[in-house]
């Protein structure tokens, strides 16, 4: 149930540009990204491919971004998929699939070209289209337990290991690994991870477009839901998700934005002692499971400071919150903790309702990327540069073309959220528009009527 795309790393809206002197491109093919990946995997010459999502066309490529005279370039029509083995600078298992470009041993000796027979004559490992013995790059053609190695240019040292790190050690994680962006793509039991941008074998809500800031790349282990450590959906239909084994960083990061009397941003750094909700309901202690069972056990979230029953934000919510001591109210936000004054106005702001805002913020208040105003997907817009030419609807910048009284907004890249307001604050509290009494000119249609007899019967 693994997808052929599992062997590829995706770069959105990117194209590989090669110097003209290189061999001609292979002829275009048709199909989904997965079909293209299958063809590329089957072709020895193919190391990457462009996929045009609209025309479902793909171009197989014999080079990657590491190849000489090749460069990456932005191109919204293509997604670039490159074979992971050619991109990684770490090894998986014994590294026999490593196709990186390290060409130096762990002791710093330059490697001898596999083609060459001096200073060390060997006949066992000669380059072929199949074995990846290129140039003088470190390789592991004989599945040596110590990983990739090479013959060296030092006549006294015939061959030496290259000391390439295992991927699971290459990038460490802090806290609960929410920021981990390494390339581990297997679970702790060794099962391969499912890609986040695929819905098979397991359907799931964590689509990369919906959570652009969670780093849900390819099928790498991530922690988008504040679990205790990075995990992934697996390619095993019988097992939906599983934790991954990732090394903890030795150095513990100093928490950012620590405040006690107010909160900044989402309040993840709040360490105050407020322990009641807006409505005065006491908070439940984090180290108890009654009245509400939960997984935020203080020992497993040591850097979230889940002390006593203080309001905290261990999961990236909008603001500090807590489980409440009342069984009928599971969670409540502690909105009554005030926002730190220095933060107000620290970012871009807008005047009035923001009709004349011309800044470049292009994220919603939830951090979801805005849809370009001229685009038709994922939402067909009712308001566009054509319908509102004067509203400066550029790119996907937040704007307020319909004079929404709640400020600049945008259509979003989340298929389930047509529009949302942006993370921009008013520069100053707008003077409230006068509330209207309307007198008796108010009229309503087809609403607000009930059978008064039923009302009386109720009595």
């Amino acid at each position, binding site marked *: 149930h693994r997808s052929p795309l599992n062997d590829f790393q995706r770069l959105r809206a990117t194209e590989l540009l090669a110097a003209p002197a290189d061999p001609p491109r292979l002829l275009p093919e048709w199909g989904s990204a997965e079909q293209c990946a299958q063809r590329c995997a089957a072709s020895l010459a193919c190391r990457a491919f462009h996929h045009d999502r609209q025309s479902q066309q793909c171009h197989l490529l014999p080079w990657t971004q590491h190849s000489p005279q090749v460069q990456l370039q932005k191109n919204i029509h293509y997604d670039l998929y490159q074979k992971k083995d050619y991109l990684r600078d770490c090894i998986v298992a014994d590294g026999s699939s490593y196709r990186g470009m390290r060409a130096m041993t762990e002791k710093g000796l330059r490697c001898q070209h596999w083609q060459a027979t001096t200073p060390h004559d060997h006949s066992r490992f000669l380059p072929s289209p199949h074995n990846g013995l290129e140039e003088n790059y470190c390789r592991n053609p004989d599945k040596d337990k110590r990983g990739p190695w090479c013959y060296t240019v030092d006549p006294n040292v015939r061959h030496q290991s290259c000391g390439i790190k295992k991927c699971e050690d290459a990038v460490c994680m802090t806290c609960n690994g929410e920021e981990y962006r390494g390339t581990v793509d297997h679970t702790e039991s060794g099962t391969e991870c499912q890609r986040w941008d695929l819905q098979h074998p397991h359907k799931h*809500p964590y689509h990369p477009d919906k959570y652009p800031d969670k780093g849900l790349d390819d099928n790498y282990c991530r922690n988008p839901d504040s679990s205790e450590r990075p995990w992934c959906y697996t390619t095993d239909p019988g097992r939906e998700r599983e934790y991954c084994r990732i090394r903890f960083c030795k150095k513990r990061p100093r928490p950012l934005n620590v405040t006690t009397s107010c909160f900044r941003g989402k309040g993840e750094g709040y360490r105050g002692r407020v322990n009641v*909700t*807006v*409505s*005065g*309901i006491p908070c439940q202690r984090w180290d108890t499971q009654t009245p509400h069972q939960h997984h935020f056990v203080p020992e497993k979230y040591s850097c979230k400071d889940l002390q006593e029953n203080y309001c905290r934000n261990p999961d990236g*919510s*909008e603001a500090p*919150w807590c489980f409440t001591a*009342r069984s*009928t*109210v*599971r*969670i*409540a*936000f502690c909105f009554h903790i005030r926002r730190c004054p220095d933060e107000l106005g620290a970012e871009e702001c807008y005047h009035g309702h923001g009709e004349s805002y011309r800044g470049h913020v292009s994220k919603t*208040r*939830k951090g979801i990327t805005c849809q370009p105003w001229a685009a038709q997907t994922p*939402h067909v817009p*009712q308001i566009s540069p054509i319908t509102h030419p004067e509203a400066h609807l550029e790119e996907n910048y937040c704007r307020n073309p*319909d004079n*929404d*009284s*709640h*400020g600049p907004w945008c259509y979003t890249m989340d298929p*389930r*959220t*047509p*529009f949302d*307001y942006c993370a921009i604050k008013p520069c100053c509290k707008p003077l*409230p*528009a*006068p*509330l*209207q*009494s*309307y007198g*008796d000119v*108010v*009229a*309503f249609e*087809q*609403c*607000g*009527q*009930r*059978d008064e007899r*039923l*009302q009386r*019967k*109720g*009595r």
Partner: protein
Amino acid sequence: IVGGQPGNSPWTVSIRNRAGVHFCGGSLVKEQWVISTRQCFSSCDADLAGYEVQLGTLFKDPGPGDPDQQTIPIARIVCGPSESQLVMLKLARPATLNRRVALICLPPERYVVPAGTVCEIAGWGETRGTADGSVLNVARLPVLAHGECNAALRGRVKESELCTAPLRAGVGACEGDYGGPLACLTADCWVLEGVITPSRVCARTDQPALFIRVSLYVDWIYKVMRM
């Protein structure tokens, strides 16, 4: 509802979790849209699979045979402007309007309901023994002028809040009513002027009760339904 009586409020809905337990109220403003409060939900990204609204019955937990009961899954939650504490819930399918299920009107933009207007709150929440908690209870509260309320609450009333006067008899909303309506009769129609949000004490006799002033957010409400 503390200090209320069994009554009829055909736009008031019961919001129930995966276990089928009532935990908050809401108001039906369109066949497929309910308004409630943010405090009832853990996040704007909450996965509401298994959550439902129940309409058309006065009973909190009606028997299977209740002919008018409608139970509709919640398809999506949309959070309002940050300071609004409002959410809109899109139902998986439209409710059927009949004698027991009706839409409540939305007020004009930035409409202020005159002080003294008699409004009512409704819900299946805590009654603190003042009424039968197994049926929908309704209580009447008079609107308090903004200035008076501000004075009573030492200047802490926001423009986005609407007050009702405290009653000596102790009448007001309580747990389980949050998200429900403050409905006021205007031009012979019941209009959703306020939404019940959690408060420190239920049915206070010494302080006005606060509700979210819906008229400040009708442009957002219509925009969500339009988009």
